[in-house]
């Protein structure tokens, strides 16, 4: 009896430790929320009083408005391009039977694994040579490359979740490759593509290192603006901006979760 009581204590210990770690994960972001409503001009905790001044300053700031606009102008097309290229790669490497699929798959994942600083200092001279440094195409192409693996992962997972026999059935019934894709493959991987798109956009929206090297003040993104402000001064405007960005990230994640759940249900229904 005493030994079983002993193991119960161990179990409770593990749970308590885990809860503490989860708190460590969540608390840092939560600390920012009250600071963003502070009436003080410096970062003190708990805030001496409450006010919306930092949200007003954030809403009135042309710098932030332009940066958010830039981030969207870069993130949406980059995610779209990544979705197209990533889906093509997944179709070829999951369904195909050509040689060297393992190293090619590794290549498709590599931009996510290799340190971005290395890619950044490699892309910089190329963009200079192409004459597009600091302009939209430069950062757009950079972000497309680092976002591609995310789409490749999600679409590959969708393709693996069902057997290629569906496609073969369509073919034996006389469908040509395009119709097979249009009516069989695409409906099955659509959810993976949308989730991959959202992940890619979120990633581009948060990416800093390529942005430091490849954007100019005219094309700078939100993370780069935050970065410059952090290196200059630490006003609670950053906290207000952070809370707004957090809300954007969380709503995108919830959207991805809803698409995933709803889409999977529909896929099942289509084949019953």
């Amino acid at each position, binding site marked *: 009896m005493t030994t079983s009581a002993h193991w119960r204590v161990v179990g409770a210990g593990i749970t308590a430790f885990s809860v503490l770690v989860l708190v460590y994960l969540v608390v840092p972001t939560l600390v920012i929320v009250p600071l963003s409503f502070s009436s003080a001009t410096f970062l003190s905790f708990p805030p001496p009083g409450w006010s919306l001044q930092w949200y007003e300053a954030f809403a009135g700031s042309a710098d932030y408005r332009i940066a958010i606009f830039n981030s969207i102008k870069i993130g949406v097309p980059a995610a779209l391009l990544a979705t197209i290229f990533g889906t093509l790669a997944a179709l070829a490497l999951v369904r195909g039977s050509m040689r060297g699929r393992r190293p090619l798959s590794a290549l498709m994942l590599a931009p996510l694994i290799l340190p971005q600083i290395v890619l950044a*200092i490699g892309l910089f001279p190329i963009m200079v040579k192409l004459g597009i440094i600091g302009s939209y195409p430069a950062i757009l192409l950079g972000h497309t490359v680092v976002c591609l693996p995310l789409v490749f992962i999600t679409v590959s997972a969708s393709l693996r979740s069902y057997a290629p026999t569906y496609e073969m059935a369509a073919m034996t019934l006389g469908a040509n490759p395009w119709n097979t894709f249009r009516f069989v493959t695409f409906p099955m991987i659509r959810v993976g593509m949308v989730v991959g798109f959202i992940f890619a956009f979120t990633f581009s929206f948060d990416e800093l290192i390529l942005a430091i090297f490849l954007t100019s003040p005219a094309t700078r993104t939100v993370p780069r603006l935050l970065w410059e402000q952090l290196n200059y001064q630490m006003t609670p405007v950053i906290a207000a901006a952070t809370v707004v960005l957090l809300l954007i990230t969380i709503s995108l994640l919830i959207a991805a979760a809803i698409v995933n759940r709803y889409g999977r249900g529909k896929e099942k229904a289509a084949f019953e």
Partner: protein
Amino acid sequence: MPPVPKSDAAASPPHRLRRRAWSPSRGNALLLLPPLLLLTAFFIVPLATVFIQSLSGDTLGLTQYREVVTNGATVSVLLYTFQVALQVTLGALILSYPVAFMVSRLRGNLLHLCLGMILIPFWTSTVIRTYAWIVILQRRGVLNEAFMDLGLIEKPLRLVSNGVGMQIAMMHIMLPFMILPLLSAMRGIDGNLLRAASVMGANPWRQFVSVYLPLSLPGISAGCVLVFITSLGFYITPALLGGQRTMVAVLIEQQASRLLNWPLASALATILLILTCALFILYERALRSTGGGRPAGETA
């Protein structure tokens, strides 16, 4: 993934059907062309550029590497980077293992709550999370104020600009990279194996050491490699929270954009690149030799 015939020469009927079907290998090779061109132009060529730049110098090709190896400051940055990456990896593993274990046994709403607590920080900008840690750890930050109010300390602790804060923040940012692979390994462990061990008379500790731990090993190695590699190339947090001693990514950025010493920056980047690739290849080998990391149907 279904087994794919290895040789193109095999021509059994189902295989021929496959080849004529929508996914003929030739057609698929064509699909691969656009992504391959994109990656060649804006991934492979840039990495090759970094390597070629690293060889340019006043005299022989290896000038930059000699500079890296003989300059005590550079060597110390590389060693420090390794040390920090190792400490962060071990710290993250110790913190993550119990969490992944607990979450892997949850169901329903509690599971979703815990997954949310892990995924939301995971997808939150690193700049934002680093900012949060500055707010918490700085001289007049949340932690110091709280400790002083409680009378635990008399004057603020120095938590930023000396590596302590940097490692606390890095570990926080890396935790999801460790928890998620551990979680996926642990959710694949068959509970009946533990029950069997228990029936055989193994106490919980014995069950853990001889059954559970070995089965969770693929998750441990995946998480550790991921966290170690990411820590090696980490820029944002070391740049904002690190002190006098910088990590190698910060040094690369300083050399390239502030000191305009592109050859040296490229040499350091090449070293980082080769280390990362080598670690990743080693890890892939290890995974393949243990049979882990493959989709379930393939090993059977």
